[in-house]
């Protein structure tokens, strides 16, 4: 399948370029035989993080969900390195969650339960009213579909080889 996209600056091409770069970085260190489950699991986690990160970078923080994803990734990486900062990160998530709950009560939407579920799904959706949440969901769905397409083609390529 042809990975060269027609529009060089489209979301798909940007994501593809970044993701392939990340993949090469992940696959570069090959010291141990990687058939062990732990290795595969670790690589799976890294690939997933790389996919999310490259997608968020392709959107370039124009959207609330991309900013939230990037912030989450950064705080997680920071919390892993420094234990003391982990507490701060957890406190931050707690504050955002409480702020989101206040918003939920304030914007007493008719479809409160489903809106709450959607907020949990879409990153950064806790602090958004229903109007913006629907916008973000639409863009998020579009980005996810491109992500799935690209990753499927990559997997097919790998499997053929």
């Amino acid at each position, binding site marked *: 399948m042809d990975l060269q996209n027609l529009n060089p600056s489209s979301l798909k091409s940007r994501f593809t370029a970044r993701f392939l770069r990340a993949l090469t970085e992940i696959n570069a260190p090959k010291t141990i035989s990687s*058939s062990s489950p732990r290795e595969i699991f670790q690589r799976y986690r890294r690939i*997933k993080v790389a996919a999310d990160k490259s997608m968020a970078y392709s959107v370039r923080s124009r959207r609330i969900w991309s900013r939230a994803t990037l912030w989450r990734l950064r705080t997680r990486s920071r919390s892993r390195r420094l234990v003391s900062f982990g507490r701060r990160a957890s406190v931050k998530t707690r504050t955002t969650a409480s702020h989101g709950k206040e918003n939920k009560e304030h914007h007493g939407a008719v479809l409160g339960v*489903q*809106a709450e579920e959607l907020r949990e799904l879409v990153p950064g959706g806790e602090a958004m009213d229903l*109007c913006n949440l629907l916008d973000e*969901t639409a863009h998020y*769905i579009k980005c996810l579909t491109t992500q799935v397409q690209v990753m499927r083609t990559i*997997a097919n390529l790998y499997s053929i*080889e």
Partner: protein
Amino acid sequence: MLHTLESLESCNYDGMDMTVLERQAARLKWQQQYYVVQNNNPVPLSASSVPQSQGLIGSNLGSGQMVELKRPEVFLGTDDLQDFVNLPVSGPDFGESEKLDLVPPEAAADYCISRTFNCQMTTPNIAVMKEEREDVILEKIESTTGSGRVSFNKRKAEAVADHKSKDKRIRGEGESEVKTKCSTEISRNSSKENSKASEVQKPDYIHVRARRGQATDSHSLAERARRGKISNKMKCLQDLVPGCNKITGKAGMLDEIINYVQSLQRQVEFLSMKIAALNSSVELSVQNLPMKEFPAYVANFPAAAKLPEMAGLPCFQLNPLQKESVRFMLNESLHPPQTEGVARASVCITEQSLSSSSMTVIFPTSMIFNCSSSLTSCMMFSNALHLSNSYCSNCNHSQLGTWILKAFTTCTIWDFIKIVELNFVFYVNR
């Protein structure tokens, strides 16, 4: 007529019997007569007899005047009529009652209106004119006296004030009766006014006309606008999410959207798993075993080696039921795998274990996978995944991922890919 007045005065002056007051009264009467001559047709007055003129002088303008006014042709000669025709009847000054009264009423009204229609008249004047057509006679009567003129002006003012309220009525009349430029102008102007009322008049406020039966305060308007925005966005989302054409209503749509987003996220996870697995295979150039060889490959694995690994999983606590199933599976694996029997047994076990916690459903199916052929185990596994996902919350997915990887240690990459692909198919078709 003047000679009669002169005769009056002459007799006044000659008699010298009249007092100053009487003289002044005579002068007033003369002035009124003069006005009458100016405003009305001199013809009827001239042709009328003295008693009629006296009737004119008095404020008692009754039917006599009307009669006189109605029949101008009797009094007017053709010459005089032509004189009146030549009199300048200007459009904008139409409000001047005097000029209107110079011409015979009905013909004058028609003539004036026709003349003024050809001119570019403003709407209030046209309205006034049209109203005057109906009331023209009464206006003429009233305008003969000074007070009458005041009242006529008052009526004109009222007409102008009533113009806005009778806008539509006049427009309707105009369009039906008179088909000229001005009628279309009226409609255009009034429609412009109506549209302007709904457009932005000031930069600060937007004037909106509320529909029937709906409130007009700012809060409800804002709410209505917000609801409209939300419905528009729901329509856009309906286009994005496949299979949402039949569903109406926000609740169902939101449910579908949530399911779709969840499935997309799971697909991303599985694809990343696939890539991770594939990467290792590509790097190590692991043998891609064909499907036929798989059962033998699996059977070669020592069951005992598997068991401690499975037991070592900390996150799952097996029920007695599952323990029995594990033992059963292990026993089965020692023997040459009879795929169908194992599959049937696994089905029973999965159904039994469904009553318990969701994650442990995966456990026996993984055992089944290890023991039986790849395809049936794939089906079992996919079924189990489906069932587990219907019960699981999202937070268990990471656990599921780790668990799957640990459970497939003994499998070949090829088989793993097959399972993953089947799961993709399943998730896509949900």
